[in-house]
């Protein structure tokens, strides 16, 4: 198993290092634009998956009100750390109450 883990880790690392080793002249403006947009679409997907999905199912639970509170606080320009902590508090609290 250790060998499999090491090989898989090397495979994952190959992506990470490739981006730094490609000479800059090979990076076109289109590729740069794509890399920039990927950050946005993947973050949005991560919010969606982390906020609504459980395995292969979509599930609306305590995470939704927690995300709503987080969005409200972000809109009010509350510091980031408080936003994250509030989301945990809302979801944890609601579950404690049996939701």
């Amino acid at each position, binding site marked *: 198993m250790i060998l499999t883990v090491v090989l898989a880790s090397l495979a994952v690392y190959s992506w990470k290092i490739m*981006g730094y080793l490609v000479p800059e002249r090979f990076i076109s403006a289109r590729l740069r634009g794509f890399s920039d947009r990927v950050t946005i679409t993947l973050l949005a997907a991560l919010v969606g998956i982390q906020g609504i999905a459980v395995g292969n199912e979509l599930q609306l639970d305590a995470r939704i009100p927690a995300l709503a509170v987080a969005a409200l606080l972000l809109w009010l320009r509350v510091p980031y750390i408080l936003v994250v902590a509030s989301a945990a508090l809302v979801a944890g609290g609601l579950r404690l109450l049996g939701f």
Partner: protein
Amino acid sequence: MARAVVSTSLSVAIATGLYGISFGAIGVAAGLDVLSVMLLSLLMFSGASQFAFVGVVAAGGAPITAIASAWLMGVRNSFYALRMAPEFGPRGLMRFLQAQLTIDESNAVSASQKSPADRKLGFWLTGVGVFFFWNLATLLGALGGNLIGSVEAWGLDAAAAAAFLGLLWPRLKENLVLAGLGALVALASVPFLPAGVPILLAAAVALIPMGRKS
């Protein structure tokens, strides 16, 4: 504002790093020994790839399938590296370290900063911070995940979602359609595709040339 970067990096590092508890617990539950679980967090260090690897192992898949799944899941880190390399890709040995720390969180914190100095600082603080908390939490989860209780009970799943939302927030207004499509494609494919693949599919949305160039 260097202070804001430090606070953002730390929050992300703690919120997503602590998620390692669930990875450690799931890894052991999948039948891996503690050393293998730890090696995944130390060497692979890419949440989606690690969960994919463990998922295949838990389902009784072949080693080559586990390796391929983890590998496919890691492709996005390459795009993050491409984004950062021209701006602050270091020369020499440091870039091998920077590569290892190139993940969703470090890229996102970096991308949401305004000045080049903050983007660099955000990357390193978040990368090192997540690495520290992720590995510490993996060990705790692997040794006794059940004792700590589920990440859900502590609301950590919601905290991780809020952490990603907070990172997206500064760029959400000018990229609303792009972000909406990304989330929609991912969520719509959740019921039909193996875990992790919906996120990859959202990357394809970025092929559509739209939104303000930054």
